[in-house]
Structures are given as structure tokens and as C-alpha cells.
């Protein structure tokens, strides 16, 4: 059993909450503090681009912490971003100047959305936090003539779908010739774009945004192909950057994320989890960073356990997976497509928008993508975990 007496978890979202649960359930009975940059108690982010943005759910319904968490005996420090870390002295400074001492630390500060140079104009949004969602929702409720969504990744695609569900005109702008083409391949990526076209979205592929123009409020977006799109609202979904700027100067290793070993340990007494963490994934033999919902739960839990276990910590090497809901389509990806050499549809077809596609690298199946096939995808997830061979998968 560990000899920790005081544990601080920085980051009060999915990974941080699950790390706190794991630490307490692992038998830790000392002081446990949960620090959050946002003023809110932990909430669930997936509904922010769907049910909450659509106006079907009120924000309260996204609350993550349940009554069971009352037993965690947490000290909450919300609305206080972490500002600096003194690793040698084991002291954490918050934005308001308060200093917390710890002997065990979980870093789960997540990531922040990348932005365009928008001149600070009103009507230009990103979508990450509950406050982001409510600000965007208010703009959508005002009945904009057109919404431009920049980036046809999963967030952008879900926002486009939700806006169409509200009956709004939408232009979806994607710099790549095929949305998610690098990740999913051209055929599957093109199918995703077609789903949006069928639903009446004006999809512009292979073009970037040169300028966001207007007065105090956005009035139009100028594209790299010379076109100009009039709009009242812009939503920027061009990815996130891990929230590590507060760690510069701490001496902890930073490289597009906070670098951890296979067990999620960064340094003695410090572990990392969630979007911020880049760790050595033994299944893939490389350092990876994963931004998925289920991953935040699993890695938060694992990091909390690693903190208690110290040198006895186990490696964390799960098959990553996530889902995305767009219109009446549910898209799921299990595994990692990086470096794939072949894609094959093994169930259904791209044309009917109901399929399972497998990705091969060498002799192995490395990923499975499904559209409206959650049952089979769940089974493929398990088979990926069992390192299924390609010949066995496509023949059986």
C-alpha cells in the first residue's frame, strides 16, 4: 500500500474525476483535492455538440459526478487553473496564488481548442466547454442566416449535423480533399462527406479559410479558393492543443503533451491522464496521445492506480475507440489506422451507409471502422485486443 498522505488531481473533467475515484477506491484515506480550471463540477462533453447544442437537454443533465462521489470526500478547488509546478518541493500554485502541497499528483488538464485569427469578432466560436456550448447555442437560437463550420473532423461534423437538425443553413469547410482522409482513407472519408451532402450541407473540400471578415461581428468567411461565404456564425473545429503551457519551466518532459512512461508515470509521485498525456503505448511501440471519451475514463482510472502502486504500476495499453453521432448515423472507430496498407469492407457497404471496414497493417488488423454497426464493432474491439490476424479476420 502506498504511503501517500496528500493527493492533488489537476483537471476536474472525465480523466481527473476517474483518477480521483480510483485513488479513493484504491484505499487512499488521506487528503484528496480536485482542482478545476472551469467553475463547474465535472460534466460530460459529448452532449455539448449534440443534445445540449440542439436544445434538447439542459446543461444540468450533463453532470458526471453522482451521489456515489460524496463518499470520495473530495476537497474541490474549482474555477482555478493551475499556474505553476515546483516538482522538487512538491508544490502546486494556482492562478489565484494559492499554493497546494502534495505528495501524489495527477495531471489531467486536458486540451484547448485551436483558434483561427478572427480579429476577436463576435459570432466566431470554438466548442470544448459547457460555456462554449451555451454561447454557441444562444447564437444558433437567434436564427443565423448561415453557419460556417471550419474543419470536418468529428466535432465539426457533429456541429454541422446539429445545426442542420435546427433547420439552419450550413457550409462545412475542410482543408483536406477528403474529410479524415489521412485517418480513414479516401473511400470511407468520402462517405462521411456524402452523408452531410445528403442532409443539405454545403460541403467545401480542399479549401482553407483565408480570413474571417466583418465588423464587430463576423459577416463572411473568405476561402482559399477565392470564394466568399456570408454567415452570422462561424464554428472552428480544427483540433486541440494539450494544456501544458503552465508546466513550461517545471522541468517535466513536454512534447505535444506531457510525456509519461508506459504506466502513465511522469516522475516520482506524478502521473498523467487524458487528452494532455502522451505515454508509451506498449501495444503500438510508440508514444501516443489519445483524445477519446472512453480513453479519459480508462486512463484516469489507470493513472490513479499507478500513483498508488508506485514502482509496482502496470502498463496501460488498451485498444482505443470512440464513437460519433451525426444525423441518424453512428460512426465508431476502434484501434489505430496509422500506417495502414489496406482497407476492406467486410460487412454491409459504403453505398448503403451501413458497414464495417477493417484496416490492415502487415499481417494484422489494426483498426475497425463502423457506420451504424455498433454490435459488430463491439466484437471487433475485442478481437483487436486479441491481436487478430488479417487472414483470419477477412476469411472468418
Amino acid at each position, binding site marked *: 500500500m502506498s504511503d501517500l498522505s496528500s493527493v492533488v488531481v489537476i483537471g476536474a473533467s472525465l480523466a481527473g474525476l476517474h483518477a480521483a475515484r480510483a485513488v479513493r477506491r484504491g484505499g487512499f484515506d488521506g487528503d484528496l483535492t480536485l482542482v478545476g480550471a472551469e467553475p463547474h463540477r465535472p460534466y*460530460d462533453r*459529448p452532449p455539448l455538440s449534440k443534445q445540449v447544442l440542439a436544445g434538447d437537454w439542459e446543461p444540468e443533465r450533463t453532470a458526471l459526478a453522482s451521489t456515489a462521489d460524496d463518499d470520495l470526500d473530495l476537497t474541490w478547488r474549482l474555477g482555478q487553473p493551475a499556474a505553476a509546478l515546483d516538482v522538487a518541493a512538491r508544490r502546486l500554485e494556482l492562478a489565484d496564488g494559492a499554493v497546494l502541497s502534495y505528495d501524489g499528483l495527477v495531471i489531467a488538464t486536458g486540451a484547448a481548442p485551436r483558434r483561427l485569427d478572427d480579429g476577436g469578432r463576435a459570432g466566431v466560436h470554438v466548442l470544448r466547454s459547457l460555456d462554449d456550448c451555451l454561447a454557441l447555442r444562444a447564437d444558433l437560437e437567434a436564427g443565423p442566416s448561415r453557419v460556417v463550420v471550419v474543419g470536418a473532423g468529428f466535432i465539426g461534423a457533429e456541429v454541422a449535423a446539429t445545426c442542420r437538425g435546427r433547420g439552419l443553413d450550413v457550409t462545412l469547410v475542410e482543408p483536406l480533399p477528403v474529410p479524415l482522409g489521412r485517418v480513414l482513407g479516401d473511400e470511407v472519408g468520402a462517405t462521411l462527406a456524402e452523408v452531410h451532402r445528403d442532409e443539405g450541407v454545403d460541403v467545401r473540400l480542399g479549401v482553407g479559410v483565408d480570413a474571417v471578415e466583418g465588423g464587430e461581428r463576423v459577416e463572411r468567411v473568405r476561402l482559399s479558393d477565392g470564394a466568399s461565404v456570408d454567415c452570422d456564425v462561424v464554428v472552428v473545429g480544427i483540433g486541440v492543443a494539450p494544456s501544458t503551457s503552465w508546466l513550461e519551466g517545471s522541468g517535466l518532459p513536454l512534447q505535444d503533451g506531457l510525456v509519461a512512461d508506459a504506466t502513465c508515470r511522469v516522475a516520482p509521485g506524478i502521473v498523467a491522464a487524458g487528452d494532455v498525456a502522451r505515454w508509451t503505448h506498449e501495444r503500438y511501440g510508440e508514444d501516443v496521445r489519445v483524445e477519446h*471519451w*472512453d480513453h479519459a*475514463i480508462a486512463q484516469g482510472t489507470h493513472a490513479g492506480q499507478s500513483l498508488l502502486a508506485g514502482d509496482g504500476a502496470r502498463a496501460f495499453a488498451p485498444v482505443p475507440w470512440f*464513437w460519433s*453521432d451525426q444525423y441518424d448515423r*453512428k460512426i*465508431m472507430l476502434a484501434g489505430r489506422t496509422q500506417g495502414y496498407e489496406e482497407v476492406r469492407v467486410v460487412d454491409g457497404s459504403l453505398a448503403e451507409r451501413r458497414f464495417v471496414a477493417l484496416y490492415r497493417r502487415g499481417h494484422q488488423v489494426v483498426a475497425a471502422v463502423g457506420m*451504424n*454497426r*455498433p*454490435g*459488430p*464493432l*463491439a466484437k471487433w*474491439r*475485442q478481437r483487436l485486443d486479441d491481436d487478430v490476424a488479417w487472414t483470419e479476420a477477412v476469411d472468418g
Partner: protein
Amino acid sequence: MRVVVDYDLCESNAVCMSVAPEVFEVRDDDFLYVLQDQPPEELRAKVEEAVERCPKQAISLED
């Protein structure tokens, strides 16, 4: 222990199935089936994890 699924909330994400395949199965028709609605006590930890990890909070336990 009795497993209750709110099928109005369930979206067949199949997280429960990967946590506790003895109890939950999303089949080829993409619907969730509860294989045993009163699972034995030794599965309690797994079922509780499935409850906690359901993205839609669609599963609950009645004792």
C-alpha cells in the same frame, strides 16, 4: 442485484458489452440484450463498472 436498462436512453454504444460480456450483448441487429437481468454476485464489480461507464447513463442496478 437486478440490471435495468432504459432503452429510451440506450444508444448501443456497447461499452457495457466490453466491460461485462457475460451480462450485456449488442447483437447484429444493433440492439442491446441483457443476457441475465439478475447476474450472480461475483459479477457485481463488472456490472457496476458497466453502469458507470455507459456514455448515456442508461443502465442502473436495483438491489
